């Protein structure tokens, strides 16, 4: 990604999200809320099925940020969780540079959408681009 306002990076960050990945995330994060692994609990409480942790969607989106900023370039990463993400969903993240600062750091808008084009996460990030 070039450090120019309007520069874009698009990346498919999840293809056919599996229940297994939700369980793996529950173990890795420590968040065992039953909405995210217990189908019976989720449907009993009004959902069609279990759904991903918002933080899993944010973590998956982070794959695109690592591509652009590297492992240690990020200075800030914020996100709002707009819609549930379901097993089977495919997610793509788009980053758009909104500002370039004199110190070389950039700001980006973040949008993650599912296979229907529905935006499930929006956010912003700032940092130094990798290899710059």
């Amino acid at each position, binding site marked *: 990604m070039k450090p120019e306002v309007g520069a874009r990076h698009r990346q498919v*960050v999840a293809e056919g999200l599996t229940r297994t990945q939700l369980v793996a995330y529950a173990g890795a*994060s420590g968040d065992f809320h039953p909405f995210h692994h217990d189908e019976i609990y989720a449907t009993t409480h009004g959902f069609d099925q279990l759904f991903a942790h918002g933080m899993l969607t944010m973590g*998956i989106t*982070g794959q695109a940020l690592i591509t652009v900023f590297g492992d*240690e370039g990020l200075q*800030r990463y914020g996100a709002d969780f707009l819609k549930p993400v379901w097993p089977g969903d495919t997610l793509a993240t788009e980053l758009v540079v909104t500002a370039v600062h004199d110190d070389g750091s950039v700001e980006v808008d973040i949008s993650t959408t599912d296979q229907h084009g529905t935006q499930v996460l929006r956010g912003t990030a700032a940092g130094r681009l990798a290899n710059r």
Partner: protein
Amino acid sequence: MRSFEFPIEAGHIQEFKRAVGDHDAPFDPDAAAPPTFMVAADRYDPDYDRRLRSDRPWPPVAPESGSGFHAGMVFEYHRHPRAGEVLTATVADGEEWTKQGRRGGQLRFREIVTTFVDADGQPCVTARWINVRAAKEVRE
């Protein structure tokens, strides 16, 4: 406010990276923590209730109790911690605000701020967990 230690373990970083989509992440004893890894500090929080506990029934919080939902998250990185470090996490209440919802009701937002410092007391990461729930009018 409460504090606890968060050991940054290489195996935990590998497990977390694989869970968020880097499915073949290798074991790296010097790995940097990925962007959202600090949320996994919850494992070490003695008060965390999204896990099985011997002193509480499961599940701990039913949605109808009005606990709300996780609406967003913000991380500010002073630097990126690496495997082998032990951070101290301090959890405190942050700001609260209300906003009109799209369906006409009022939404109440509340921040929980976790500050992570390194062994020298220097800031590493600040994490803001944003919770939202429908505001109920209380009449007595």
